[in-house]
């Protein structure tokens, strides 16, 4: 067991709490119908995004899928621009052209979020290919869900990336469900890392609810990818607490076995890391209270700024179709 890095744990904890609070604030305000686009919230899954993004350098570039709020924030995406985008504002990260499913922040290194499952995986490999062609440093990181493993794009992409030994890390968030359909109804029983191995891609399995475990595995994967060992696969098991799309708990629909969600909540990545920080003496009630107050005030200000921003002018709707 590696020595507990209190500073790293604190940075991770802060990022986890911030993302959770952003998502809960979106969920709380969503019924106001001011955020008029579909939202796929990351509540419960924050450990993967934060654990995988904190070890990244400025040269490393992320591509994400439809559930990308956590990745966007973990990679350093601008919070106000994200909320403005979800509110359909001109100051949004896509100027209101994309909505929640297309978050991007090029300066922060989140190049694109693509909500067609598997569609962003070739883009990530293209980014890695370009890095090599341009003799530039940096690893491409693609976040994907367990459903993406079923797409042809995933297999085609792994095959190509492995063939060319490209510097790309695939971070597979296995939350066990594609919308309402459990993994066992979609894939034969085998470790997801085996799928990578069939393409010659080494994989690691971690608990996505353990920030420190994800972080350590990601560091290992990045070292390998940077050293020319080719693509890496990180399989992180985790749980989505809310409905696939939207702000509500949907456990009453009965698509999960009884008690599964409650057990998942016991593995909460925030509580887990918080307990470790308390044990180390890094966290106490006072510091926690200050953290939440700080985060919530940032979020309130960001919501206010996003809401106050103008909607994009209808006169600009036809701009940027062609260069």
């Amino acid at each position, binding site marked *: 067991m590696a020595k507990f890095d209190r500073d790293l744990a604190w940075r991770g904890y802060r990022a986890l709490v911030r993302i959770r609070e952003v998502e809960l604030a979106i969920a709380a305000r969503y019924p106001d119908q001011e955020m008029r686009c579909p939202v796929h919230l990351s509540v419960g899954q924050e450990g993967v995004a934060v654990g995988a993004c904190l070890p990244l350098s400025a040269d490393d570039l992320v*591509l994400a899928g439809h559930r990308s709020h956590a990745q966007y924030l973990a990679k350093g995406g601008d919070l106000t621009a994200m909320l403005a985008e979800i509110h359909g504002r001109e100051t949004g990260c*896509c*100027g209101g*052209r*994309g909505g929640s499913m*297309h978050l*991007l922040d*090029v300066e922060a290194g989140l*190049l*694109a979020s*693509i909500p*067609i499952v598997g*569609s962003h*995986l*070739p*883009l*990530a*490999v*293209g*980014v*890695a*290919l*370009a*890095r*090599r*062609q*341009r003799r*530039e440093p940096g690893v*491409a990181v693609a976040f994907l869900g367990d459903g993406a493993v079923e797409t*042809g*794009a995933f297999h*085609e*992409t792994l*095959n*190509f990336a492995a*063939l060319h030994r490209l510097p790309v890390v695939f971070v597979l968030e296995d939350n066990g469900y594609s919308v309402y359909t459990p993994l066992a109804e979609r894939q034969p029983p085998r470790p997801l890392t085996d799928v990578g191995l069939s393409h010659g891609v080494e994989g690691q399995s971690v608990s996505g609810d353990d920030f420190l475990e994800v972080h350590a595995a990601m560091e290992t994967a990045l070292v390998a990818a940077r050293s020319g060992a080719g693509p890496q696969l990180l399989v992180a098991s985790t749980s989505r607490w809310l409905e696939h799309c939207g702000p509500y708990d949907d456990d009453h629909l009965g698509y999960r076995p009884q008690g599964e969600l409650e057990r998942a909540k016991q593995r909460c990545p925030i509580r887990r890391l918080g307990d470790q920080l308390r044990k180390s003496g890094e966290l106490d009630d006072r510091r926690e209270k200050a953290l939440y107050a700080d985060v919530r005030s940032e979020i309130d200000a960001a919501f206010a700024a996003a809401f106050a921003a103008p909607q994009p002018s209808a006169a600009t709707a036809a*701009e*940027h*179709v*062609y*260069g």
Partner: protein
Amino acid sequence: MADSLQAARLLSVAEAIREGLERALDEIPEAFVMGEGVTDPKGIFGTTTGLMDRFGKERVIETPISENAFTGIAVGACLLGQRPIIVHQRVEFMLLAMEQLINNAAKLRYLTRGRQSVPMVIRLVIGRGWGQGPQHAQSLESVFAAIPGLKVAMPSRAVDARDMLMTGIRGGDPLVLLEHRWLHGVRGPVADDVDPDVLSGPVVRREGEDLTLVATSYMVLEALRAADALAAVGITAEVIDLRVLRPLELAPIGESVRRTGRLVVIDTGHRTLGMGAEVVATISERQLSHLKAPPRRLGLPDRPAASARSLAASFYPRAEEIAREAAEALGMDTEDRLHVERILDERREHRLVDVPDPSFQGPF
């Protein structure tokens, strides 16, 4: 300019494309070529032959049979400033990659308000004849041309093929370049200078006053043949090569129809929902008062291309059918119609329909 025209060489469309690729790789460090067969001994009908030897495997990339992935990989490379040219040996292979083309290549500029762009060229080859059948002989330009964010072009001659490729790869948008397999061997003059306006829209190939024939790709050659035969009975047909299907610039066609009052559009693909439908609809909207006769359309019928020669015979319109439509539009008398048919019959050196007309050798 005069010097370069004097220096024009006679190249086949395939040779001109190869020259365009070589010059793009030479002049643009961000350019690279990728596709199934780009490094093989046949080199995509000779269009990529020798490029890997000169530029190496990092810039001329042979690919697995993963059309969707390598199309998306090309789009991803664009996000870092690369300029990929990808190629599929048949249009049909691109159908496996439509997701990447329509969702990503055509949308990223708009989504990022121009901060990102996808300056890539997607070369697709339209097959025809020799029994290639339903899945190797489709001309699907109107499918691609339906998507905002894509540029779609169809060269009919060597110099345009090279210049569209070279202009497209220096541009800021994904360009779908549809090459007709029957044009690869057709020769034409190719000057050294690249025409930077080649993607601006239609061009008049033959001037005329009595009717306007608009065609794309290989059908431009059939239209020119029809115009030749019509000239024998004193009809001057203006032949316009549409060239760029999206964005669609119809002003030159409108200008022509204002003079001629008669319009026949010849699609390389299917007639129903083809480019001709769009051209006729728009010209009718804008120029109805100038039309002396209802506009007419020719194109492939509503069925797949069959393999057997006997089934393929009635599938492709030729100069004969174009002349017949022109005769209808003009209200030509029977004697003139028969004369035109006789000329076309005599000039076609043989009647086989599953290989290119031997008279189409160029230069044109």
